[in-house]
């Protein structure tokens, strides 16, 4: 499974609609402190089904909504869309005939949420299941957040066990 593109709009510091297009191989994301690099990582976790605001570096889900700036008003909704392609085996049912999948997650101020796969409304569970079936999911070792590499050592034997358990 390959990520083809990631679209962000209204998510954290991405007040303006933004596209990242991946063309295979290793990608490096660079920029000054505070410009939004780790927010892209949060967006990726979120569209994959992350439900814990803590793992998105926040206290509640509302904090992912772009809070506004001098020239841009606060966002009423946050939307992240991830487009994937599956080369060798194809996607799990009911998407086995699809060449591409577009997974979309929307959160409205006030708490409403929408989830879509190829524009069809689905439940959060369907998104989470899709990624679990394809071995993607939010496995602890697929996402090494800023500072986490130090934690693998300092957090001790129990946390390290959880880390390895995800590969079991």
């Amino acid at each position, binding site marked *: *499974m*390959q*990520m083809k593109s990631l679209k962000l709009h209204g998510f*954290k*510091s*991405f*007040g*303006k609609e*933004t*596209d*990242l297009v*991946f*063309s*295979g*191989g*290793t*990608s*490096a*994301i*660079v*920029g*000054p402190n*505070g*410009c*939004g*690099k*780790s927010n*892209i*990582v949060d967006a*990726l976790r979120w569209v994959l089904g992350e439900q814990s605001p803590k793992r998105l570096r926040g206290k509640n889900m509302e904090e992912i909504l772009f809070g506004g*700036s*001098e*020239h*841009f008003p606060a966002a009423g909704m946050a939307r992240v869309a991830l487009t994937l392609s599956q080369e060798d085996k194809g996607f799990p049912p009911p998407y086995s005939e699809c060449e591409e999948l577009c997974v979309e997650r929307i959160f409205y101020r006030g708490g409403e949420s929408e989830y879509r796969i190829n524009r069809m409304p689905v439940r959060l569970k369907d998104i989470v299941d899709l990624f679990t079936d*394809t*071995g*993607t999911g939010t*496995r602890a*070792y*697929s*996402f*090494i*957040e*800023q500072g*986490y*590499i*130090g934690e*693998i*050592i300092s957090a*001790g*034997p*129990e946390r*390290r*066990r959880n*880390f*390895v*358990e*995800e*590969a*079991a």
Partner: protein
Amino acid sequence: TKARFMEAFEGVNKKFQEVFPRLFKGGKAFLLLDNPDDPLEAGIEMVAQPPGKRLQNINLLSGGEKSLAALALLMAIFQYKPSPFCVLDEVDAALDDINVMRFNELLKEISALSQFIVITHNRQTMEIAEQLYGVTMQSPGVSQIVSVNLNSAPI
């Protein structure tokens, strides 16, 4: 289940024992269950011996050595059971330039298995990437993506 965890533990341990000397250009390291009689509850200890040094719990290594050992474990787990993609956010922060280079060589190899996205401030790491995305805030407080030229990169 106990059997399933033990199988993963031994598989990861085997990989870890190969990856560590690759990153440290020598030495050895391995994982231990801190309670071998209770595999379902035991925690995992890491013991390491960088080249020329003594075998010790990784807690006693330097900041950069701990980082590199943790990356060895991460890469071992990844090789044992790859995910379709992997996102690394500034994992090279504590490494000196030589260790950054060694980690990047390994990364290039493992990236054949999966799609890697790395966030970094380090120029060496930028150079091994096949694609580079620059994030800026031209309008204060609002992020956008710009194309990046490594030679003129103001980072």
